[in-house]
């Protein structure tokens, strides 16, 4: 399993370098404007990379070969989820560093709001990964990408619809409730997603 995770990280080596340059560019452009947009970009760029690793695997017909090694199908699926968690966490940590360094450079004190934004995006990135991984296992990378765009449109459409019909969303004064809800939702999402992926992958014929 360690080998499988290592393989993905080694494969992303060149992507990491490119991403570093892009991050620097965004940081220079956006931080002086006091724009928190950058944190989202960094985390989501890292979150997207799990999809890249699966396309690399497809290209090399890796999975069929890996399964000739002492690696179980369960380990194959689990390793992808761990890679996703590692990449997302890496993205969140880098965002945090950019945030702290940015505040120091701009001579401001580190705003707790940044931490909240990073935390929220981190969880959203996990949900995003949990949706796309089973879709990829079922339909392949290309189709899954399209489906993901549809998935992203769906909640937006619902929100717009709710607004149209003046459905009042339940509100509460306590932001902690949102946080706990979001965490609970993400954790449940990841676990459910893993179980679905495992089921699909166990029946896959190579």
């Amino acid at each position, binding site marked *: 399993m*360690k*080998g*499988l995770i*290592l*393989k993905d990280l*080694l*494969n992303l*080596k*060149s992507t990491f370098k490119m991403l570093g340059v892009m991050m620097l560019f965004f940081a220079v452009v956006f931080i002086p404007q006091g724009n928190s947009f950058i944190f989202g970009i960094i985390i989501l760029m890292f979150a997207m990379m799990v999809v890249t690793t699966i396309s*690399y*695997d497809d*290209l*090399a*017909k*890796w999975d*069929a*070969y*890996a*399964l*000739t*090694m*002492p*690696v*179980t199908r369960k380990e194959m699926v689990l390793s992808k989820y761990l890679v996703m968690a590692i990449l997302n966490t890496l993205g969140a940590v880098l965002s945090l560093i950019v945030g702290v360094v940015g505040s120091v450079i701009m001579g401001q004190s580190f705003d707790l709001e940044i931490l909240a934004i990073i935390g929220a995006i981190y969880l959203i990135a996990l949900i995003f990964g949990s949706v796309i991984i089973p879709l990829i296992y079922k339909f392949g990378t290309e189709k899954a990408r399209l489906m993901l765009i549809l998935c992203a449109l769906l909640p937006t459409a619902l929100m717009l619809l709710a607004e149209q019909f003046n459905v009042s969303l339940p509100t509460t004064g306590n932001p902690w409730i949102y946080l706990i809800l979001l965490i609970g939702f993400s954790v449940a999402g990841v676990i459910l997603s893993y179980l679905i992926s495992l089921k699909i992958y166990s*029946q896959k*014929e*190579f």
Partner: protein
Amino acid sequence: MINAIEIKNLNKKYQDFQLKDVSFKVPRGSIVGFIGENGAGKTTTIKAMLNLVSRDGGTIEMLGMDTLKDEKKIKESVGVVMDGCNFHDNLKTGDIAKMLASIYKKWNQELYQQYLKKFKLPDNKIIKAFSRGMKMKLQIAVALSHQPDLLILDEATSGLDPIVREEILDVFMDFIQDEEHSILISSHITSDLDKIADYIVFIHQGKILLDEEKETLLSKMGIFKCGEEDFGKLEASEYLRYRKNQFSFEVLVNDKAAIRKKYPNALMDGVTIEQIMLFYGRGEK
């Protein structure tokens, strides 16, 4: 354990193709050539052996263990090379070693280095820059570096030039020397099998047609060349397949000594594995 691989009544059904009661053995210490035309079922059989596809029936034992029950243990001691390179384009040989060292318990880094050197594979280039021959050699080096007892090779020599092929065949011969190791090699380059195989298993349309020691096969079988009159006298049990030419018949016979006795003036040629394949594939019964 007498057999490195033992397959009994393997069945696998697809919409337009099926493996029907495939059974054969790979005796320990031997090289078994698994032949058949494209689409005959070679790769499907190998995939079923490795649990890459599910099967509809039958049992498969490898290294004395059941492949469904002891899958992980078996795979620790089996090296597999498939048609093509399965490592990612951006990796280097060193990256592969790092990754495989934590996958295989018995990964031998020294041995891997030795093979890389022997095959003259560069360690500073990414795999994308490797030629097809180099990629295949890398796959073989990897398959051997965790010290397997059994090698399964699916079209591992196809698409390679004769020099590289011979180099690879020499490595296989070395591997087999200790009489413990075994190889199952599927190929349609039959000249390779003429050189190294001890046994020939021939699959045709999902069924095993032949399973025989190569020397026996080649010494027993023959091609009987005759006119229409003589062919008419042959009984159905005396030949396997025939091919009709413009003026004569070519008949693949199972027991050339017996036919020769019956027709003392008969023109009888020896066979090669390729000819056997052609007779089964294109001849008539």
